[in-house]
């Protein structure tokens, strides 16, 4: 988290608007949680809670009647439930990428968006975990996935990819939550110190754990942060790889593919960046965070979206090529016929166009720096990536081997209500987060500002080593 001096020669710019002070950063970000919510917040929260209500009804009805209330039926036994699970887990991945992988690569610009992206990870993984929990038919038996002693003296089968998934997603959620919380501790202390309201002092104080900005603490804190980033990096790559093995270890054409793990990870990062952008653009305009979340950050995210779009497009093409090149007639029937020309051809188009074609707009600087364009593109990518999972799951199942076993799939209103309900849960949680917690990592942003450099400005003269001081002064003058 060391200070950041832009290399102007290669076109780098400041991370925080020039002339901003530490106090302004605190005021901008902490102020959001201290003033009454704008009217827009209440409208959005009311809307989100409406969908939470719909979700509660749909899941209650599901528990009452059983999974028959969904459209899942022979031969499509996995449909929207698993599509939604994979979609939500994927969205979470960008959060970890931004908080961990970009931290390891010392990409200082991440400080503007990492808190936000980590929150998104946690809420997305909560939404994801709902689906395996409710799709099992008898959700009260869900504890069988855990290695707990039970009345049948049975243990879980550790050779099953579905069980790997339990451990992968469970670990992912726990580690993401810890990472997020560790990042929050210094900022919670800021909120505790600013407020005069007793309730806020007690609640924020409790969670700030008595943080006092001590350098003896920062030493261990920074090391803990580095270690968490270092272990989250392989973790995030493993999670969607394990999710993809739920499919790849089966023998269904369309699933039985070795390209799945990297392809799922690239898709996850792609969809996750799109979702971060959707939510960030709304929050930036509603809460006026233009001073911290600069166009430069948004443009970098768009470059990520373009890059991962190319990776995803490569994976799609490679699936087609290998289907043809393998000579396997079931593979060919699936990839060359059922996907582009089968009964769900429209779903395939919804996957291909938003994921591979629309992001190509970002080759143009004008497009990737236009707020309306990026908002629309991010929505398209979210939709396209949902359809990607729908294509993988439903289109592989609806026409497998024997034509006599083929079928069609139609979702029910309960499917739709459950899925839109989780979007409501996601946004409700997000709105609460934006209201009560600092949505930008204040301590980290301050650490990247020029004043954070102990050799910045007037203290050069007082520095013990004159040679070093001259060097810094020269650099200052050149700027």
């Amino acid at each position, binding site marked *: *988290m060391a*200070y950041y001096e832009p290399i102007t020669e290669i076109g780098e710019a400041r991370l925080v608007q020039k002339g901003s*002070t*530490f106090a302004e950063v605190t005021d901008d970000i902490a102020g959001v949680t201290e003033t009454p919510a704008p009217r827009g917040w209440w409208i959005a929260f009311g809307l989100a809670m409406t969908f939470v209500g719909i979700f509660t009804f749909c899941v209650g009805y599901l528990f009452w009647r059983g999974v028959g209330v969904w459209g899942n039926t022979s031969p499509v036994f996995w449909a929207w439930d698993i599509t939604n699970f994979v979609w939500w887990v994927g969205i979470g991945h960008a959060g970890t990428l931004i908080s961990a992988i970009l931290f390891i690569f010392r990409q200082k610009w991440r400080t503007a968006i990492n808190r936000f992206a980590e929150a998104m990870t946690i809420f997305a993984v909560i939404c994801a975990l709902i689906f395996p929990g409710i799709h099992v038919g008898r959700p009260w038996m869900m504890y069988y996935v855990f*290695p707990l002693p039970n009345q049948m003296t049975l*243990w*879980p*089968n*550790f*050779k099953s990819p579905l*069980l*790997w998934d339990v*451990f992968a997603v*469970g*670990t992912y959620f*726990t*580690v993401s939550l*810890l*990472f997020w*919380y*560790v990042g929050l501790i*210094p900022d919670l202390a800021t909120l505790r*110190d*600013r407020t005069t309201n007793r309730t806020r002092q007690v609640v924020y104080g409790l969670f700030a*754990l*008595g943080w*006092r*900005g*001590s*350098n*003896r*603490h*920062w*030493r*261990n*804190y*920074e*090391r*803990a942060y580095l*270690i*968490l980033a270092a*272990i989250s990096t392989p*973790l995030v790559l*493993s999670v969607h790889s*394990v999710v993809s*093995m739920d499919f790849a270890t089966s023998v269904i054409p369309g699933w039985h593919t070795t390209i799945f793990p990297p392809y799922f990870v690239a898709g996850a990062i792609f969809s996750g960046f799109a979702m971060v952008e959707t939510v960030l653009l709304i929050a930036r305009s509603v809460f006026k965070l233009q001073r911290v979340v600069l166009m430069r950050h948004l443009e970098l995210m768009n470059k990520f979206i373009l890059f991962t779009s190319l990776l995803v497009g490569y994976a799609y093409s490679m699936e087609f090529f290998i289907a043809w090149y393998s000579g396997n007639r079931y593979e060919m029937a699936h990839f060359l016929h059922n996907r582009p020309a089968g009964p769900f051809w429209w779903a395939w188009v919804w996957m291909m166009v938003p994921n591979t074609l629309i992001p190509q707009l970002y080759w143009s600087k004008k497009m990737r720096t236009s707020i309306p364009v990026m908002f629309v593109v991010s929505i398209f990518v979210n939709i396209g990536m949902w359809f990607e999972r729908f294509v993988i799951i439903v289109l592989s199942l609806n026409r497998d081997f024997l034509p006599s076993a083929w079928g069609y799939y139609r979702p029910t209103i309960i499917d739709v209500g459950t899925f839109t309900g989780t979007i409501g849960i996601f946004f409700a949680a997000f709105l609460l987060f934006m209201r009560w917690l600092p949505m930008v990592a204040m*301590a*980290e942003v*301050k650490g990247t500002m020029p*004043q*954070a*450099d*102990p*050799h*910045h*400005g*007037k*203290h050069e003269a007082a*520095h*013990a080593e004159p040679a070093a001081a001259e060097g810094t002064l020269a650099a200052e003058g050149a700027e």
Partner: protein
Amino acid sequence: MEHAKATEQKIAPTVILAEFDDAGAALHAAEKVRDAGYSRWDTHAPFPIHGMDAAMGMKDSRLGWIVLGCALTGLTGAFIMMHWMNGIDYVTVVGDKPPGAPQTLPSMVPILFELTILLSAFGAVFGMLGLNQLPRHNHPVFASDRFRKASTDRFFISIEAEDPKFDVKATKEFLERMHPSHVEVVEEEVE
């Protein structure tokens, strides 16, 4: 806490706070406190200051060793769990792999990995809190109202009364010589 309140005799100093307006001043002051030989002292900043560890003469964090221990525990624990549950207590033969055979190892890799990561994360977070002796909500520095700015934009050096070299007058003068923007003797009632 204002000095005016300190009228009773039962009040004793607990810590002296020197306040600085920027990171550089705090860093150079910390070098002087270190060289003066104080031991129970600290610096406080809204973000970690680059070079402050050296300025305070602190050693590297030991956290990595704690995490390494946790990682190895997670790895071996995961192996023992899977091997005992599927290979010894209730033999589950899947994919024609005999219990305990080396061929079962590849299928263990995901869970071996995940539990290694999970326990490392617990080690990193709870190890950090343990080394920092947090949570601790009652530190003497919190008695200062000005200290609330330490989490926004001020930098503090605190020297505790428990330091063997501590002397209210001498330490206060010592800190004042470093041109802080403010020096405060924090006092507390004692029994």
